[in-house]
């Protein structure tokens, strides 16, 4: 419940908030540079150029949350397709696809992400794609495992016996039964995608300024850590809130959707 509340709050704030703020994201207020939070006209303070932190945070949230959701969608689609094919056909197709998943998983995801990001022109769409390309493997594994067990179940054997097509069996009979764990994995994937985007952007290979994202707002924050710590602390806290929210939601969904999956209790 906390997870859902945090996500709804953040999404609403980012969607509506910027219209309610008196300042623009790029408007520069040189008289109020480095204004600390709560101690002046700018609610959450200002950065080195006197830009309002709150409005930037909300607009950055739009970007970061969009990247998170889009990357989740893409990676889930890739994962489901790979998992379906591998789990349904099994045999050498399944082996080959799952070994491919294993091989991609050998590359630490941040290394892979940064290498790919350094090769393309940075932009919201390219970053989203790259994040998705480094995050689909878990879903593929889950769907693969589910398909392999589901294929042996009576209803699948029955469907096959009455002679439905592979397509029908795969998409209509088996796929719906894998949805619960996929939804859980997809929710956790949003959290992962937001984190990965923030890493890439913080390290300078993600969303490029002046477009704000939660990660790149921390780009220069280390320089000003002594004089203006809020520039680092506030955006990071918001990232943590968003990621924690999705992680809690995913965990809650797991408990709600499939008690059997609950290994921790």
């Amino acid at each position, binding site marked *: 419940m906390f997870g859902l509340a945090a996500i709804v709050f953040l999404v609403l704030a980012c969607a509506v908030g910027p219209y309610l703020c008196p300042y623009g994201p790029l408007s520069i207020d040189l008289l109020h540079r480095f204004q600390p939070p709560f101690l002046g006209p700018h609610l959450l303070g200002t950065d080195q150029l006197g830009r309002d932190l709150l409005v930037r945070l909300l607009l950055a949230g739009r970007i970061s949350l969009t990247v998170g959701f889009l990357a989740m969608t893409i990676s889930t689609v890739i994962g489901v397709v790979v998992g379906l094919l591998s789990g349904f056909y099994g045999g050498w197709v399944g082996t080959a696809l799952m070994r491919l998943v294993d091989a991609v998983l050998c590359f*630490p995801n941040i*290394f892979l992400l940064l290498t790919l990001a350094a*090769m393309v022109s940075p932009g919201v769409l390219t970053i989203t794609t790259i994040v998705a390309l480094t995050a689909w493997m878990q879903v593929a594994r889950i769907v693969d495992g589910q398909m392999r067990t589901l294929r042996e179940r009576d209803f699948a054997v029955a469907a096959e016996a009455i002679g439905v097509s592979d397509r029908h069996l795969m998409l209509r009979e088996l796929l719906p039964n894998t949805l619960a764990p996929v939804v859980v994995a997809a929710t956790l994937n949003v959290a992962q995608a937001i*984190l990965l985007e923030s890493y890439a952007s*913080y390290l300078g290979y993600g969303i490029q300024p002046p477009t704000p994202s939660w990660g790149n707002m921390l780009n220069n924050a280390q320089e000003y850590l002594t004089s203006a710590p809020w520039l680092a602390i506030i955006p*990071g*806290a918001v990232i943590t809130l968003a990621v924690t929210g999705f992680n*809690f939601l995913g965990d809650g969904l797991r408990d709600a959707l499939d008690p059997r999956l609950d290994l*921790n209790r």
Partner: protein
Amino acid sequence: MLSYVARRIAQSIVLLILVSIIGFALLHLTPGGPLSQFANTPGMSAAALKRIAHQMGLDKPIPVQYLDWTGHLLRGDWGRSYRDQQPVLTVIASHLWATLELMLSSTFLAVLAGTWIGVLGAVRRYSVADYLATIGAMIALSIPTFWFGLVMIYLFSVWLPWFPSGDMHQPGDRSFLDYAHHLVLPCLVLTLVTVATWSRYMRASMLEVVNQDYIRTARAKGLRRRAILVRHALRNALLPMITIAGLQVPTLLGGALVTETVFTWPGMGRLFLDSLGYRDYPVVMGLLMFTAILVLLGNLIADLLYVVADPRIRLS
């Protein structure tokens, strides 16, 4: 057991081949491909480029090029850095220890803390401490590592000037004490990355063991609670942690990259980012392959150690 070991090693070799194919594909995706070093040199003519491409064998069919490339990798010829013309492996080796020290020290801490938290959570299930540990683990998994690093620097380096905010040594000071002093903050930050996972798996593993028959027998014999927990339960619950340790390698490497950047720690992660900044693709590709191989080896060693540690597998 021998057949298991053989099978496991064969699997790893297959994976290694797949990893090298992915690496090769990435190399050809880099802007300019393997030629980028020369393409960026001022005054390079198209004809000269073509000649170099021929010298490097880039006009051969792709499968031949792949075999050439892996042949070089196997012989330890990983190319030269664009920056200082040093062999890539030498460059990596000079940064390897800093990263390993960071990873090992933080793993040591994470295992200690994670085991303790996990056992406590399992023994006092659903207590306040258990819930706090669950929530804490979830938050720890959600915190961006770089942000946690910045917060630690702010707290313990700016606000309370206890620890240095970066680097490995004070200039001119090579003592171990100074080194340890510099290690504290980055090590703590990297610990956070893995301690949550350790404690979660430890708790689950402990819960599984506590319900086994031999624990009930031990209890029925009238053994002290502590003896049961430590000698019977913990020893068995720790077994699956070997596998977890292997699985942690990629997370640790990624965490180390970020931690090293925040704390200007001269390890492989920093080297990787610097090389990316310089478009030093031989080093970038080298590090990518090197870390993938480390991950592969980590998993393999963990699985082999498991066989050594668990007689049930060894004898079956």
